[in-house]
């Protein structure tokens, strides 16, 4: 039950800037995910919080306490390593008890703690085994249990599920979230898997190139990304450069490589020349039966490729030149984009077929990024 306050933190390794001006406020008891591609600095940030990596500048408070010069062993954090980092020469029981022994718990307390933790992570029957004798999932549990055993205020997870197969990953993900809710610790969770981030977190922090791109709830991050990076990294997105032509209330007319499109937005674009985006599932093939209010965008495309994924069908579209197009207002700078579309269930459309596509204007959003 500990908050973390990170203020203008920079971390440099020689000439390389691993973290740039990071500021982050994590409330006690929240589940925060650090999401980003590999090399974005998310693990560095985690290790900085744990105390393994010293700050080059800025300050960090854990539970309101300045962490400067506080070594990892003195911090109220416990880390779950990607590699598990189990002590191979110690039995499962001794692995779990390693932390409590450092905290000088009495023998009595150690025993009860061991029983608690072992049952929490379902390892009661494995206590006398050694890590190399366990399966991957069991090792993961030992790592989790070992960190839990010191009852930390903050649990740090460094991609803890990346070495598990897909099925196991789902169940462990659920268990971790359950545990966090039960115990109420603050969790900081590093992952590059956007689905995992969206599924688990209260707050998602999207990072790129050592800096934070966006902080928000999973819903915000998915539906209201602020820039092309976030939009593209979290889920699939169709992103087009757009020139705002005119505005009628919250309805905007923009010029794109697909021709003129209508965007319904409560938020004004940040510049005349900006980006618009929509999710592949926010469009459909039923262009022929468009609603009569005229706020839907309809254009003709050819299907280049079609992939049936079971629950959905994904197609790659090649938009055809717009019949009403005004040649001199087309954005010449952009080459013709290809568009992704995802619809539920099996779709009958065939590759090479020409179809009419509909994107409701309310599904298109402006990104807070100009070009």
């Amino acid at each position, binding site marked *: 039950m500990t908050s973390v306050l990170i203020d203008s933190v920079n971390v440099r390794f020689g000439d390389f800037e691993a973290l740039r001006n990071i500021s982050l406020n994590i409330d006690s008891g929240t589940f925060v995910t650090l999401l980003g591609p590999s090399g974005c600095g998310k693990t560095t940030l985690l290790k900085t919080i744990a105390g393994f990596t010293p700050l080059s500048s800025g300050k960090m408070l854990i539970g309101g306490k300045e962490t400067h010069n506080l070594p990892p062993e003195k911090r109220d954090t416990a880390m779950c390593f990607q*590699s598990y980092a189990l002590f191979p020469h110690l039995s499962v029981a001794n692995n779990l008890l390693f932390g409590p022994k450092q905290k000088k718990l009495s023998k009595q307390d150690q025993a009860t703690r061991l029983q608690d933790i072992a049952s929490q992570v379902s390892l009661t029957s494995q206590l006398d085994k050694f890590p190399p004798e366990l399966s991957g999932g069991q090792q993961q549990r030992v790592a989790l249990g070992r960190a839990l055993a010191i009852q930390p205020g903050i649990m740090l997870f460094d991609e803890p599920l990346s070495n598990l197969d897909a099925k196991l990953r789902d169940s462990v993900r659920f268990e971790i979230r359950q545990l966090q809710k039960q115990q109420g610790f603050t969790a900081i969770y590093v992952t590059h898997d956007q689905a995992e981030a969206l599924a688990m977190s209260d707050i998602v922090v999207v990072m790129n190139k050592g800096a934070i791109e966006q902080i928000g709830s999973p819903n915000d991050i998915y539906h209201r990304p602020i820039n092309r990076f976030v939009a593209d990294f979290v889920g699939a997105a169709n992103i087009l450069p757009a020139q705002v032509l005119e505005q009628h209330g919250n309805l905007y007319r923009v010029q794109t490589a697909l021709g003129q499109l209508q965007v319904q937005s409560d938020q004004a674009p940040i510049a005349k020349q900006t980006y618009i985006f929509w999710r592949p599932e926010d469009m459909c093939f039923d262009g022929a039966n468009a609603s009569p209010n005229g706020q839907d965008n309809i254009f003709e495309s050819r299907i280049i490729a079609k992939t049936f994924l079971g629950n959905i069908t994904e197609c790659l579209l090649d938009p055809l030149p717009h019949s009403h197009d005004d040649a001199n207002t087309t954005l010449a700078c952009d080459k013709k984009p290809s568009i992704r579309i995802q619809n539920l269930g099996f779709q009958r459309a065939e590759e090479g077929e020409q179809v009419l596509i509909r994107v409701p204007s309310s599904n298109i959003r402006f990104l807070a990024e100009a070009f």
Partner: protein
Amino acid sequence: MNKQTLLAYCLLLPGLGLIIVFIFVIISMALAQSVGYFNFSGSSTFTWQFWQQILADHQLSRAFFYSLKIATISAILSVSFAYPLALWLRDPFRGSQFVSSLLKAPLLVHGLVAAFLYVNFISFNGFLNQIFVHLGLVSRPIRMQNDSYGIGVIILQVWKQMPFALLLLTGAVQSIGHDITDAAKDLGAGAWTRFVKIILPLTLKALQAALIIIFIGAAGDYSFQIVAGPIDVSSLAQLMLRIQANDANGWNLSATVAILLMLTALIGSALLALITQQVIKWGAKR
């Protein structure tokens, strides 16, 4: 026996086979000579007389305890110096390559040369004494050459063997993942606890290997002993060679010393390794 096993055993012949034959013959030779066979100067018959003569010799027990002392202290000191250096050199940093090459340099200086350099350094009119006199620490140079405690030999052993221990331990320490030590740190273990509970147990094999090899080398030392060793006590190897050269039954008598030396080296190093293991296990459990 299937075909592959047969093939494997055939392949072992030129290398391993040679080793086994060679060592077997040499040990048998020593054993046979120690009980009177292959006597070059008398009749070759079975006899315990050489064993009785050697075991009753006051020099032997002195040489035995002396060699044991030198070997144990050298082995322990070498690894105690090597550990901190290995830990320090675990992560590369600017100049770490240079430092580790520098530290390994003694491996390539011949033992006799090292002994000479040492004696030259500490001799009555050597550099160290001149410095002492100049600094006014002593009025007349101190006599340090061939000290009767074998300190010179131990210094030389450590100087020459420490790099070897360092080589072994650096490899072992580097193979411990950073995550493991980070995890220990994270769970509240300080530097000493991490060393005792994580690093020592995980490098136990390399530590034992270093101890064994240094112990055996130091127990059988001849070159440091003859140049820098005490005058009034011999090492086992020195005694063995002296007896061989100076006595009418030299070969047979020295064979008994050879077998004792071999036993000392083997049993001593095994004991040292075993004790180390127990101590470390006890330390890790605590």
